[in-house]
């Protein structure tokens, strides 16, 4: 539980741990937030002094991240995950229930300053939702009984760290394993294999080693193993698993070729795409494989420092992951002279995020690692030459590093034989939504959507959202399409919707998500995502027209042409995909096919009605608008999406 006081010595000890280094600003703020419950103005002043940063700069960082607060938010902060899968499991009803039990209004701190309840973007527990974060710690499988228990603990002011541990029990739910999840590699195996490589006389690697020896000032015999490792990664055809699918070997090579030093290895574990949770499971079940992959990368590109950027929602994994790193240091798999190799020094630090989806974009992630607001950078230059602190940096997804470790152990040829010609290896899918067995499924690339649906026990499936809101929504006539870069590229989300679902509400949930997560840097995304959200809400409230559908098309065009990063480019995808495939669900909500003003004259009288306590016909402009809307009510009631228990 947050302390009420933050003494100067508490602050000093936090600053000391981070060496009063401004690049650690976000980590420092996050610890103050965790310790104290909020970041008071006086603390910002004092940080401004100690870190020699303008106070406005610090205020800007606090204001950017959802989990940092410049105002008190109560001793207990309860945030419901608000992905569409949480909604389908009834999170809105549960949220209302909790608010009533705690006598508070959503989004407002209770009168006594004890607690606040709100929503947050997907917390990555879609296979065991509905979920919430209690002071940053994830609690899955919510029920009314569980909430009763939480209310008791809150009212008795029991610190969250002392709540019963079974409340926080998170399942891996691994349903199908292949080479990655089923590997039985021991820590260090891949590294030993990499180090043991020698140059075959007359080979291309030997020629490259000779060439680089001159350029890099290293004896060519010492270059054989790292360059062979790089060669194996290239040969494997491994492509980035974060969604974009850039060839990993080329990225590593470009980074090694960058003249500047030091170089950095960064693992992107900011798994923010709603519906994606495979990195959470890899971090839980395969942490050694991940760190081994990062170390392999450091070996291949000659880097000395690594970062794991862990999303704030996975805060609960921090201690376990640090313990794995410590064990690897003891085993000489991290630190100086790894496995007895004189020049092989590498270590990994974990940085936590603080609630910002956009930090999954690699250049925004780097800004965030530097302790700043997570704004995507202008490119070029690219991170491989100008990344962390403007030094060469390789950023890869958790799954990519895991796969790279397997390639180092078993060779590139072994790896490229798995999957399809253009998509080598396996892909881990995070399956959630309407199916009997949600969880983690690993398949060789090329598996059909139909196969996945059969395996997870999905019935009467209406649609599948592949790769989250920024991906693609497909209908039943497309279930023979394949999971592969050449067909359905995915970062891993696989959300299933059956015929009882309303795809308009799915798209509206995603529109809210993008508006909430836009960084606000560029005009089209900052304003466009807010407009899309307003338009979807207007349609939901029964005031939509054909004009609004045309406006969505226009917004999409603007965002595609001019948004600064992928968030803006893809923000309209869910709306356009569902509009194309499920247009009737939009059209039955349209009030008229002609223009309808956004300004609701009768609605403007609502305040006057509330103040006078009147709601008779005379207090309305016309009977027509006073009647309940023919279209379904907005989703605040939760009736549309939550399944009735029967």
């Amino acid at each position: 539980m947050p302390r009420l006081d933050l003494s100067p010595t508490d602050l000093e000890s936090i600053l000391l741990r981070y060496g009063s280094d401004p690049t650690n600003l976000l980590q420092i703020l996050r610890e103050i937030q965790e310790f104290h419950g909020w970041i008071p103005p006086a603390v910002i002043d004092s940080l401004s002094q100690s870190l020699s940063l303008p106070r406005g700069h610090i205020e800007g960082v606090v204001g950017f991240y959802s989990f940092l607060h410049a105002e008190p938010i109560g001793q207990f902060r309860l945030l419901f995950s608000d992905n569409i899968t949480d909604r389908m499991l009834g999170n809105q009803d549960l949220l209302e229930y909790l608010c009533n039990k705690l006598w508070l209004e959503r989004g407002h701190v209770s009168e006594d300053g004890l607690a606040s309840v709100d929503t947050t973007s997907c917390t990555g527990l879609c296979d065991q939702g509905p979920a919430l974060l209690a002071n940053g710690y994830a609690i899955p499988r919510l029920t009314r009984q569980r909430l009763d228990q939480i209310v008791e603990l809150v009212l008795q002011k029991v610190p969250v760290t002392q709540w019963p541990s079974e409340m926080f029990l998170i399942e891996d739910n691994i349903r199908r394993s292949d080479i990655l999840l089923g590997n039985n590699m021991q820590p260090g195996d891949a590294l030993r294999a990499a180090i043991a490589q020698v140059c075959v006389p007359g080979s291309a690697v030997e020629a490259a080693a000779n060439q680089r020896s001159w350029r890099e000032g290293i004896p060519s015999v010492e270059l054989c193993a790292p360059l062979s490792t790089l060669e194996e990664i290239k040969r494997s055809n491994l492509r980035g698993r974060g969604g974009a699918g850039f060839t990993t070997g080329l990225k590593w090579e470009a980074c090694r070729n960058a003249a500047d030093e030091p170089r950095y290895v960064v693992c992107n574990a900011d798994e923010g795409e709603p519906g994606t949770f495979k990195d959470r499971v890899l971090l839980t079940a395969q942490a050694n494989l991940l760190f081994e992959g990062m170390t392999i990368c450091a070996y291949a590109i000659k880097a000395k420092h690594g970062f794991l950027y862990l999303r704030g929602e996975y805060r609960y994994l921090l201690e376990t992951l640090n313990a794995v790193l410590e064990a690897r240091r003891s085993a000489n798999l991290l630190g100086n002279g790894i496995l007895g190799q004189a020049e092989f020094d590498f270590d990994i630090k974990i940085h936590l995020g603080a609630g910002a989806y956009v930090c999954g974009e690699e250049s925004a992630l780097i800004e965030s690692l530097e302790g700043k607001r997570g704004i995507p950078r202008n490119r070029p230059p690219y991170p491989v030459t100008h990344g962390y602190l403007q030094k060469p940096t390789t950023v890869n997804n958790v799954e990519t590093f895991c796969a790279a470790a397997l390639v180092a152990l078993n060779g590139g040829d072994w790896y490229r034989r798995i999957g399809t010609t253009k998509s080598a290896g396996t892909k881990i899918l995070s399956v959630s939504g309407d199916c009997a067995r949600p969880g983690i499924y690993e398949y060789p690339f090329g598996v059909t959507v139909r196969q996945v649906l059969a395996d997870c026990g999905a019935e009467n499936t209406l649609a599948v959202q592949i790769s989250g809101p920024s991906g693609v929504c497909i209908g039943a006539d497309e279930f023979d399409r394949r999971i592969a870069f050449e067909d359905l590229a995915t970062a891993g989300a696989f959300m299933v919707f059956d015929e009882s679902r309303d795809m308009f509400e799915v798209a509206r949930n995603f529109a809210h998500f993008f508006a909430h997560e836009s960084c606000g840097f560029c005009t089209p995304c900052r304003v466009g995502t807010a407009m899309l959200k307003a338009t979807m809400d207007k349609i939901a409230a029964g005031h939509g027209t054909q004009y609004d559908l045309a406006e969505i098309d226009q917004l999409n065009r603007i965002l595609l042409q001019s948004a600064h990063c992928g968030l803006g480019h893809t923000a309209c995808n869910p709306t356009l995909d569902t509009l194309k495939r499920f247009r009737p669900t939009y059209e039955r909500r349209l009030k008229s096919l002609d223009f309808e003003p956004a300004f609701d004259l009768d609605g403007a009288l609502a305040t006057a009605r509330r103040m006078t306590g009147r709601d008779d016909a005379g207090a309305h402009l016309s009977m027509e608008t006073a009647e309940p809307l023919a279209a379904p009510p907005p989703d605040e009631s939760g009736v549309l999406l939550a399944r009735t228990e029967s």
Partner: protein
Amino acid sequence: MSETFQLDGEDIPFAPGQTVLQAALSAGHYIPHLCYHPEFKPHGSCKVCTVKIGNRTAASCTMPAQAGLEIESNTEEMNALRRTLVQMLFAEGNHFCPSCEKSGNCELQALGSDLGVMTAGFRHFYPNRPVDASHPDILLDFNRCILCELCVRASCEVDEKCVFALSGRGITKHLVVNATSGKLADTDIALTDKAMQVCPVGVIIKKRVGFAVPIGERRYDQRPISAQALDDAPRPPSGSGVCQACEE
């Protein structure tokens, strides 16, 4: 030197390190823009200067000039995009041109006029943005802010005061003032600061000098913004180019 690229069919020479917009403006060719300022490193947030290169589009202010590029700028497609972006900015803030001291000197207004923006085209957001009148000599009217960050950059890089910063994100992104009270009166801003001169709209206003030049005789009343390309050609920065305090 003198490698060139093509802009709307005309050869534009460029110096190494110049971006497309900088090269175009140096050559007297106008590409509409808002958040770019000739004395600062371009950062590309307003996106008004977006141009088309083949099938791609890119903000010309941050795109490095390269020999042989074929760029389309003054086309109906690109101008329609710019028109919509300007409309978005009008819809996002509270812009009441007839009562604004900056009318006629306002780049947003001038650009809207040039691009043929007749209405905001979208529903207005009508955000609640209280003004800051705390300072004896300076008024901050946040209602007109288009978040171009020019004052932030000028105050950091030239004045070395960092009086302004940005906070929030998405549609709630906003300008903040570097003081515990959040009030301009508690900062060390001075009338002579660079930050006082760079606002393209009417956020940072000198008190007691309103309407010194009559409406009708102001900068963009004289000639349209598009006729002032050479005025915006890059010139030596008046500051260091980086914020020592923020960037280290």
